[in-house]
């Protein structure tokens, strides 16, 4: 049996992911994270001197704090198993990536283990975020200078 034939046989047997069910769960879990964040933003706007725009910073930090607790107590992996992308895509998922790597590599020490691995998972997001931001901003700035578009 060659590889092509086997791939066909394997495709016929391997169960397909339940896409609709997964999407509904991702929608609910992801939406729930955003809703919680909206209430936290309300808290910062009501009790502190934040506007709708500036409240975003402390809200993000608070969500990452919540993510740290959920990760540390072993709950985030359960949320991730249910919610899929609904748990990975919100900023809490970014927090989970950082925190889970940090506590995983504690056994190799704080410098080589935690320090060396804390961005093991989240690092690629930062890299591609920074690089694409650089390119987009560069192109836009040049286009503005050339008078093609305006800020």
């Amino acid at each position, binding site marked *: *049996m060659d*590889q092509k034939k*086997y*791939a066909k*046989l*394997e495709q016929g*047997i*391997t*169960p397909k*992911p339940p896409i609709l069910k*997964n999407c509904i769960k991702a929608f609910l879990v992801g939406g729930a994270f955003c809703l919680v964040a909206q209430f936290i933003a309300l808290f910062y706007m009501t009790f502190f001197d934040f506007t709708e725009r500036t409240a975003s910073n402390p809200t993000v930090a608070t969500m990452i704090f919540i993510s740290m607790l959920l*990760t*540390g107590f*072993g709950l*985030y*992996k*359960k*949320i*991730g*198993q249910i*919610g*899929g*992308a609904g*748990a*990975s895509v919100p900023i809490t*998922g970014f927090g*989970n*990536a950082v*925190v*889970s*790597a940090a*506590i*995983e*590599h504690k*056994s190799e020490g704080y410098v080589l283990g935690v320090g060396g691995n804390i961005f*093991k*998972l989240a690092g690629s997001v930062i890299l591609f975020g920074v690089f694409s931001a650089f390119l987009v901003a560069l192109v836009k700035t040049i286009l503005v200078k050339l008078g093609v578009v305006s800020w």
Partner: protein
Amino acid sequence: MKGLLTFPSTPSIAATGVTAGPLEKKSPFHVNFDKMFDDERCGMKTNEQGHAKLMEDAIMIALSKVDKVPSDADFLLTGDLVNQMTPSNFSATTVGIPYIGLFSACATSISSVLLAALLTEAGLSKLAVAGSSSQHNAIERQFRYPIEYGSQKGDTSQWTVTAAGAAAITPYQKGVPSIERGTFGKSVDMGMTDPLNMGAAMAPAAADTLMRHLSGHNTSASDYDMIMTGDLSKVGFTIYKELIGNQGIKDFQNFSDAGEEFYGNNPDFMAGASGSGCSAAVYFSEIYKKMMDKEYKRVLLIATGALLSPLSYQQGDTIPCIAHAVELTMK
């Protein structure tokens, strides 16, 4: 020849020892495990030390059942999945038996038994200990993600067991299962690339080794009370049956898979169990006991292993797999 082995002196498996972690209490097989730890690190500081402890205790239990101490043993043949197999190496340091580390991924449970049988057959060993082990946290962090990372595991994923199995192999003795024949597998690559669907990658290797064993030793599947594969699990086991069905095997009553049955039908464990401890724990507890009880007279054990590393997967390589088979009889 061609990887086929026959052992005229029929070396015996005089005793076995199986240890497992806390989660393995959910396994229907756990009643026959010798020792269950309540702590996933087996009371040690790191996962890897706990991993070594699992193996060490399994070795000691197997030896104690034949009233032996490590200094009586001639060879130790063990392996696991951690980089450079430190858990097996470290457990070998503790017991101090002349040691050969083996890597056949999750098929090490059988490759170690075959080599121990060869040493015994050649008259070079009076008592050899063979086995393999795996520890969930240590393996997951190496092959996949940090334990607490919230990634979604699909229906094809398998759960690495925390368990170790060891077998004490001696020249022929009455009243215990003996090793009659064996087949070393070929490394088979059918172009699978998904590391979260190992069963599908391993099934062709298992089918290849089974067919080679049957035709090479002139036996048929119905000659065995049980033909048990290692850790194909639900997806891989179905594919494997389809593959061997195409090659003329029609009756699957005496077929089973250790990984598929390891956690019963608990959906939390997705497609079932995997890891070098999976097949070792089931073969050296459940199967061994059923042979001792004479429920099984002749079994064929085919342990399966995926020969990938996180590096090979990231570099885009496909996943080659291997399966080794041993035939045990109870006279």
